[in-house]
C-alpha cells in the first residue's frame, strides 16, 4: 500500500517534471529554463551569504565554489562557503546549517544531503526571515516558503540527453540485431533524487525512441527503477533495459555489476549515471576489454568527469558523457541569493548540462566544466 502511494506520488512528480523539462538545444545542451532572469542581477547592499555545500570530495564542488566566488566578487557580496567531510555526513551538514542560521546572513544557500534531515533547521530559518536557495539537488519536503528557489541540473532531462546521444549510435545496431539487445544502466543507488532521475530519464527516453522505431522494450533489474520507469515490463522484448544497483557503494561491487552486464551476450551499451558508476565501468572493463565504439563492442556512456573518466573518453573506452555545469551553478546560486536578499521574486533555475565526447571535450565552453 505504502509502496503504491509512493510510486503514485513519484509518477505525479515525474509528470510534473516532464512539463518543465526545457527544450533541448541542437548542439547537445539543455538550456537554462528562462523562468528567472539572471542576466542583470545587482546587489542593493554588500550582503553576506552563508553557503552550505555537500563537501569538497569531488572536484565538481571546487568548480561550483569557483563559479560562486567569481560571481560574488562581481556583485560585491561576500560569502562563507562550507561543507561536511563526506557526502554521508548528514548530521554534520545539519550542524553547519544551524551555524549558518545563527550567523544571521542575508540569505543561505543549501545543497542538502538528505531531503528531510534539514527540515527543522529550515523552519527556523523561515521563522528568522532568512530566505534559503537550494542548489545541486532540491529539498522536496522543505517547510513551505522556506526554500525560495533552486538552482540545479534537471537530472531527468540530463538523463534524456544521454539517451538521445546514445540512441543515435545504437539505432542501426538495434534494427540490425537478430535477437534481443540489452542496454545496461548502472546506478550508484536507488535512493538519491539525482541518481534515480538520471536513470529514469535515460530509461524512459531510450524506451520512447526505440518504441517510435517499432521495437518492443522492457525494463528489468532493480525493483525501484523497474517500478518507477514509464516502461511496461513485457516478455520477449527486442530491447531489454537492465538496471544494476550495488548493495553497497564500493568500487568493487560496482565494477562487478559492470562485468556482469558486459558478460551478457546481448549487451550493446552500458550507461553509468554518475562519476562512481563511470569509474567502475572503466575498472570493470579492464579485464574484459569489451567497451568501445566499434560495431562488436559495448558502447559506454556516463556522467560527470574526473581524471579517470576524461582519460577513458579521450582514448575511446567510453563513447561520451554528460557533464553538469558547476561553474554556472555556482554563479546562479549567488545570483538567486542576491535577488532573494533584494526582495525580488525568484524561482527555480535549471543550470543545464552538456554532452561531451573525444571530439569536443577540448572546447573551452565544455572544458571549463570538466574537472579532474
Amino acid at each position, binding site marked *: 500500500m505504502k509502496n503504491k502511494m509512493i510510486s503514485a506520488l513519484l509518477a505525479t512528480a515525474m509528470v510534473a517534471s516532464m512539463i518543465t523539462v526545457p527544450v533541448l538545444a541542437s548542439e547537445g545542451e539543455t538550456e537554462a529554463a528562462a523562468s528567472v532572469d539572471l542576466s542583470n542581477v545587482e546587489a542593493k547592499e554588500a550582503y553576506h551569504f552563508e553557503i552550505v555545500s555537500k563537501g569538497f*570530495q569531488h572536484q565538481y564542488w571546487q568548480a561550483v565554489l569557483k563559479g560562486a566566488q567569481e560571481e560574488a566578487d562581481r556583485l560585491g557580496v561576500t560569502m562563507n562557503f562550507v561543507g561536511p567531510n*563526506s557526502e554521508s555526513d548528514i548530521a554534520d551538514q545539519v550542524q553547519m546549517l544551524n551555524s549558518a542560521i545563527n550567523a544571521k546572513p542575508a540569505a543561505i544557500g543549501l545543497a542538502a544531503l538528505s531531503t528531510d534531515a534539514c527540515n527543522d533547521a529550515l523552519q527556523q530559518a523561515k521563522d528568522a526571515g532568512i530566505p534559503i536557495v537550494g542548489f545541486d539537488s532540491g529539498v522536496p519536503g522543505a517547510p513551505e516558503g522556506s526554500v525560495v528557489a533552486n538552482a540545479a541540473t534537471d537530472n531527468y532531462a540530463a538523463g534524456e540527453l544521454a539517451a538521445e546521444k546514445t540512441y543515435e549510435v545504437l539505432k542501426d545496431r538495434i534494427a540490425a540485431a537478430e535477437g534481443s539487445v540489452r542496454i545496461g544502466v548502472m546506478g550508484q543507488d536507488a535512493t538519491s533524487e539525482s541518481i534515480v532521475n538520471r536513470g529514469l530519464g535515460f530509461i524512459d527516453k531510450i524506451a520512447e525512441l526505440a518504441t517510435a522505431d517499432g521495437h518492443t522494450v522492457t525494463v528489468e533489474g532493480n525493483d525501484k527503477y523497474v517500478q518507477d520507469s514509464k516502461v511496461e515490463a513485457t516478455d520477449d522484448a527486442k530491447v531489454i533495459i537492465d538496471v*544494476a544497483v550495488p548493495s553497497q557503494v564500493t*568500487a568493487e561491487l560496482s565494477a562487478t555489476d559492470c562485468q*556482469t552486464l558486459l558478460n551478457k551476450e546481448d549487451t550493446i551499451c552500458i550507461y553509468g549515471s554518475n562519476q562512481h558508476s563511470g569509474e567502475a565501468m572503466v575498472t570493470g572493463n*579492464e*579485464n574484459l576489454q569489451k567497451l568501445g565504439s566499434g560495431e562488436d563492442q559495448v558502447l559506454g556512456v556516463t556522467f560527470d568527469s574526473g581524471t579517470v573518466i576524461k582519460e577513458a573518453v579521450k582514448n575511446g573506452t567510453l563513447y561520451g558523457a554528460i557533464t553538469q555545469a558547476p561553474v554556472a551553478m555556482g554563479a546562479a546560486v549567488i545570483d538567486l541569493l542576491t535577488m532573494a536578499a533584494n526582495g525580488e521574486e525568484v524561482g527555480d533555475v535549471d543550470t543545464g548540462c552538456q554532452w561531451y565526447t573525444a571530439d569536443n571535450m577540448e572546447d573551452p565552453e565544455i572544458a571549463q566544466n570538466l574537472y*579532474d
Partner: protein
Amino acid sequence: MADKKKGNAFTNNPLVKAVGTQKIVVLLVIIVLFAFFSIMSSGFRKYPTIVSIFDYSYYISFMAIGVTFCLITGGVDLSIGTGMICYALFGGYLITRQGMPVIVGILGTLLLGLLMGCINGVLVAVLELPPFIATLGTMMVARGFGSIITGGMSVTWPAASSEQGWFRMLFKINKPGLLLPVGFIWVVIFVILMSLFLNKTRPGRYIIAIGSNKEATRLSGVNVVKYQALAYIISGVFAGIAGIAYAAVFSSSIAPGTGAGLELDAIAGAIIGGTSMTGGCGSIFGTLLGVFVMSMLKSGLPYIGLQANWQQIITGLILILAVFIDVIKNRKLA
C-alpha cells in the same frame, strides 16, 4: 586444532586432521559456490571474470591477514577499513599533488599504516583500552585525517597507461592477450610467511597464548604488552599493504570519508575461516579461505540476477552460520 577428542571417520582422516575441519568445510563451500555460479551463468565461468574475483579480493585479503592477529589476541581492529583508504589517500597525495615518485607514495602508505598500528598498539596494550572502543576511535580519526590530508578531495593514483603506472603491474598484468592475477602471488607469499610466523616463532605463539589466557601468559614471564601491541602493528602494516593493493587494482578515484564497513568484510572473512572472536585460535590460511567465500558471493550473486538486498542477506546468513559452527565447536571442546 579442535578435534582431538573422538570424532568420526571424516574428522579422523589424517588429511582432515592436518588441515582442520572448518577449513575443509570452507574449501568445500568455495568449490560448491564456484560450481553453482559457473553452472548458472556463462558469464561467470570466463577466465577474465575469475581473474577479476582474484583482483578484487587482494585488499580484503591483506586486511584480513592483519586483523586475524588482533582477533587471535581476543581483540579486534576496526580502524583498518577507513585506515586503508586514508593511507592510500596519503600515498596518492604524495604522488599526484606533491609530484613525488610512486615508490615514495607506496612507502608513505606503508609508513602511515605502521604508525596507525603503533597508535592502536599503545592504546590497547599499554593503556589497556578495550580494543573495540580504541580502534573505533582510530577508525574515525583515520576517516577524518584522510579528508584533511587531501583537503577533502578525492585522489587518483597514476593510471596503468601512464609512466608512473608500473606499480599496478605488481598486482595485475593486463596486456593484450595476457591477463594474470599476479597479486595473488603476493597474497600467497604473505599467507605462508605470516602462518609460519604465527605458528612456528616465539612471538607468534605468544600472540596465541595471550588470546587463550592473557593473565597466565603474563605470569609465565611473557611481555604481554609488547606482543599484544605487535598484533596491532601487524594489522596496521597489512592495512597499508591493502591500501596499495586497492590503489593498484581499482582505476576509480579514492574518495575521502569512505572505507567504513570494509573492515567488517575482512573480519567476517577471518571468522568464516575459523578464527574465533574470543581469541586463542585462528589460522591465516583459514582467513584466506574465508575471504574467498565472501569474494565468491560478492562476485557471483550479481551474475545469477539476485538484487542488492538479497546479496546482503545471503552474505549475512553465511557469516552467522560460520560463527554458529565456531560456537558449536567450542561447546564440544568445553
